[in-house]
């Protein structure tokens, strides 16, 4: 059983409990052991626009905690993924920045060495577990379900930090995962569009307009549900779906489901096990016969 350090970040453990539950349960069943490190807190993402050094020092503090344990990091939030991956790469390459950051880290008894790796759980599923092994683990294929994948931004971009595991312009990994659990991937207009979450606190209406536009495109595609892999995308498409309807327009009633929830159901977990009651837009879908 391979062991990883699970980096939860800020949003998942408070607003994405269904994401966390489904990721932990599916990981365990697939032979992945996830452990927490007490040093993990915020990845530093929110502060890159305020103070560059603080942001990188926060990322480095978490990276070095995993280094000390000799563990690689698995993330659930795409913004955490990009922040930690970018810091890991940049601090390895840029000696001056590394020294500056390590000076800050000395105050908390840490040091960045550059010996760990960071992977989003979806990437881990696609790359390390593999589509065939996932297909083999599926006992309750989600056949008949049309699922629109939302990749979000930081899972793929900036692409130079991600070693080419997927294309930033024509991504496929999430669609292939959807296929692996027996559902039908659905294409839709402007698939790469950002959820708008990055400016929710700055300009709510602009942010909701971005959210609403994608909800409309997915609705038009005839998909039964959308799937995402980032808690902030979930805040926009699921938790704020009603706000997007009221403040921008339309009526979508489009379930937004974290991919590990779909995976879990396909692997035989019940909808309760995957905490589908926590999805804000009611998930009224036929999942075949869930046998747990």
């Amino acid at each position, binding site marked *: 059983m391979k062991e990883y350090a699970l980096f*939860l970040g*800020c*949003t998942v*453990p*408070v*607003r994405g*409990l269904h994401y*966390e*539950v489904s990721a*932990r349960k599916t990981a365990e069943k697939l032979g992945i052991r996830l452990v*927490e490190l*007490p*040093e*993990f*807190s*915020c990845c530093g993402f*929110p*502060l*890159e*626009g*305020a*103070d*560059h*050094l*603080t942001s990188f*020092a*926060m990322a480095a*503090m978490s990276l070095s905690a995993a280094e000390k344990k000799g563990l690689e990091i698995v993330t659930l939030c795409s913004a955490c993924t990009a922040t930690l991956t970018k810091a890991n790469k940049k601090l390895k390459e840029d000696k001056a*920045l590394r020294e500056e950051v390590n*000076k*800050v*880290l000395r*105050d*908390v008894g840490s040091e960045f060495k550059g010996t760990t790796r960071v992977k989003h759980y979806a990437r881990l599923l696609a790359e390390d577990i593999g589509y065939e092994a996932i297909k083999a683990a599926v006992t309750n294929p989600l056949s008949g379900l049309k699922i629109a994948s939302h990749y979000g*931004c*930081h899972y793929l*971009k*900036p*692409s130079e930090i991600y070693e080419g595991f997927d294309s*930033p*312009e024509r991504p496929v990994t999430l669609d292939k995962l959807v296929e692996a659990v027996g559902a039908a991937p659905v294409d839709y207009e402007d698939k*790469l*569009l*950002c959820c*708008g*979450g*990055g*400016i929710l*606190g*700055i*300009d709510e209406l*602009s*942010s909701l*307009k*971005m959210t609403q*536009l994608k909800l409309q495109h997915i609705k038009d595609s005839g998909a039964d549900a959308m799937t995402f892999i980032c808690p902030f995308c979930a805040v926009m498409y699921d938790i704020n779906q009603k706000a997007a309807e009221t403040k921008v327009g339309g009526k979508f009633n489009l379930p937004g489901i974290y991919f590990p929830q779909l995976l879990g159901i396909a692997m035989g977990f019940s909808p309760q096990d995957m*905490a589908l009651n926590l999805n804000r837009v009611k998930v009224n879908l036929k999942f075949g016969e869930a046998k747990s």
Partner: protein
Amino acid sequence: MSDDVIDAETLDPDFKFEIAKQAGGENMKLCFQCGTCSGTCPVRAINDKYNPRRIIRMALLGMRKEVLCSDFIWLCSTCYACHERCPQNVRIPELMMAIRNIAIREGNIHPVYTSYVTTLDGHGRLLEVGEFENEKRIKLGLPGIKEEAARVRKLFDHTKIREKAAGKQADEKACKTEGS
């Protein structure tokens, strides 16, 4: 922002060098104004207050105060769509964050960033995990979380981010009176 006439006397030719020195802003001078960023930008598509090509042009011209003290610099959603297509590797999302870093030191800080700093200072995370949150977690079989603010606070002590966020660092603050 003066839309019609730019007074050359008020331009600061050093502004582009100041940005280039700030982490994330190193590549701004490579911009040749093709507009691919603005054509790609999903925020630009729905809100014409935000126009990355224009902001870069203003910065290159030396419109220091107009850029740093504006409210449009907060509108980049950091989706990196422009970054993937920029032929000059200007690294626009990181450039926007570099501009924000300077703006904050000049006394223009968006309240969202003030709240980021305060919340992280208090809890070590952006969303508080107290008894209520932990009860919900434990009910679902998830491990409880203990906030670890002390370590984050020590980083903040070192980098003086609190002072920067409060605009206490610059002697002469460009956005002091009209900071948005």
